[in-house]
């Protein structure tokens, strides 16, 4: 039984301009101990996907189709009380602690303590406090700083405290949503290092959501690239990155663009090309490939027929007509 099994998930938002499908037919399996990175631009549905797992969607969002199974349990069958019991004990989150994810008027240790108190009421206060100190030690925060308020911490420390909090109830799956965004380069590096170490030492499943492909490749062994609500490419990190210099056909042009957005430190000095244009408006029906408008290789066929997600090799799927073409010919 997989830790997490998402099948054909569809999530709709009711907005003023109509119903917007933020996640469209997304399937994803995460095994115990896996680290999966979900990458894409803002608004591609990656955060919505993460929040949907323990049903933390905004009030105007609904699961319009598909299923989510955690440890074999379909979460659609659970009521609010059962969901609350599952939250943080099975799936916890590392939100952007550097921003506002920690309550500004509560002490850090109290916020971590609360998670333990809620889910393990039988644990004594002394034991719970000792665990808080231990968790903070794990992320490099001294016990003397435990009783601080969030504003007394630097952005990097807040993010580390957030990680400590996410581990408080030994969840099987941790979802890190933009864990390095809004941090300086050195703090980013520390956080990525920490996520890697923790994963190795504690064997938790990890889903890391980020717009930063380079950050994801440092932590995750599988990558899911999302564009406009759909998965456009998924495969092992080695597969996706290994195709870096290969001709178009085994890598999605969007992934290519994401990779190119990061200049190679050792390569020739060129300006990162970037990607012009915007993702399509999801509130309107889309005909053909969602990426066609921004793709240099797009043909009339691309604009007329939506491509399917097809395997280009074992464990490597790409949603592109050219990917199919190369395999067939």
């Amino acid at each position, binding site marked *: 039984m997989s830790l997490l099994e998402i099948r054909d998930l569809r999530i709709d938002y009711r907005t003023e301009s109509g119903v917007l499908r933020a996640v469209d037919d997304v399937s994803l399996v995460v095994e115990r101990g896996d680290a999966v990175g979900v990458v894409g631009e803002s608004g591609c549905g990656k955060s919505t996907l993460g929040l949907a797992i323990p049903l*933390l969607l905004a009030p105007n969002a609904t699961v319009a189709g598909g299923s989510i199974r955690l440890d074999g349990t379909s979460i659609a069958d659970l009521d*609010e009380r059962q969901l*609350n019991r599952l939250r*943080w004990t099975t799936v916890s*989150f590392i939100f952007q602690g550097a921003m506002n994810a*920690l309550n500004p008027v509560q002490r850090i240790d109290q916020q971590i303590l*609360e998670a333990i108190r809620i889910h393990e009421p039988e644990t004594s206060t002394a034991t719970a406090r000792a665990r808080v100190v231990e968790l903070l030690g794990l992320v490099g925060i001294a016990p003397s700083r435990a009783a601080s308020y969030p504003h007394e911490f630097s952005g990097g420390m807040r993010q580390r405290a957030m990680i400590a909090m996410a581990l408080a109830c030994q969840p099987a799956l941790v979802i890190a949503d933009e864990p390095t965004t809004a941090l300086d380069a050195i703090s980013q590096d520390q956080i990525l290092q920490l996520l890697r170490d923790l994963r190795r030492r504690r064997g938790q499943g990890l889903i890391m959501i980020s717009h930063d492909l380079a950050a994801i490749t440092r932590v995750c062994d599988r990558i899911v690239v999302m564009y406009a609500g759909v998965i456009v490419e998924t495969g092992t990190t080695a597969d996706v990155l290994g195709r870096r210099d290969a001709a178009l056909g085994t890598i999605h042009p969007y992934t290519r663009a994401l990779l190119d957005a990061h200049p190679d430190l050792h390569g020739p000095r060129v300006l990162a090309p970037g990607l012009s244009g915007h993702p399509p408006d999801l509130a309107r029906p889309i005909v053909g490939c969602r990426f066609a408008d921004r793709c240099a290789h797009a043909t009339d066929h691309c604009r007329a027929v939506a491509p399917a997600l097809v395997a280009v090799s074992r464990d490597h799927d790409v949603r592109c007509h050219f990917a199919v073409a190369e395999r067939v010919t």
Partner: protein
Amino acid sequence: MRGSYWVRKLASLAATLYATVSFNFLLFHVLPGNPVQLLARSGHYDAAARRQLVALFELNHSLLDQYVIYLNNTLHGNLGFSYVYREPVTTVLGSAIGNTLLLVGTATFITVVVGVWLGVVAASRANSLTDATVSVTSLSLWSMPDFFTGMILIFVCGVWIHVLPISGIESSGLASGGLAHVLDIARHLVLPATTLVLVNAAEFSLITRNSLVDTLVEDYVLTARAKGVSRRAIVWRHALRNALLPIVTATALYVGMVLGGAIQVETVFSWPGMGLLIYNAVEQRDYPVLEASFLIFAIAVIVTNFASDVLYRLLDPRVRRT
């Protein structure tokens, strides 16, 4: 750092109080008209009597000297002599202050508790019928003048269904201090306090509602939900304390409003407090009483603002270190 904050804060409190006392002096001494002219208007006073009055009110000194005398007297708790009651102003004010504190204190406590609770209920069901009902009802009540609401209550509870006393603070003929006496005062307190609560609760219910609705979409509320915190606990434990910050500020402003409201309500219900005293003092041109009452109201507002600053620091750790 922490010490210097309190030094600065207390210094600014002292400066504000000094400025208020001085302004109060100017209000009554520089503006045209003085008590002697008013008293002598009837023509029963001869020149000697006038001179005596001028001396009594210390108007025979220069303005600066009068100011110094006034400051000195105020600092020593001498607020002048009421010529309507023919008693020192402090004696006249004595029982009135207590009665107003009882009325305004009770009303404020209930207003804040009921207002905040209604705001929480409305925000928890934002954009529902309950939310709309709370908002519309509190706005309607807020837009009514205190005396009007008071008169409606008198009409309904006193004239139609004779359930509660509509005037005064106690019934005559009860031994003071006994339980019966306390209950009697409480019964007299119901209508005037209810009037103030009805009119002012909106300020708290609307601010709480809006502040809480804004707070409930903050990232840390999502964190709390993800942690499996129950809806109730999210509102009361995580969101409300953050949402309360504007309410603390509102309370300070509210005290100024409620004192104004107390003048109307005490007059309507003949509640023998500062408000009724001021109303009567205006009618009878009892300047010393007015002067002292203004000063006390001003000090009450200043001290409340100071208290709200202190409370703000207790609620918000981010303010403490600045």
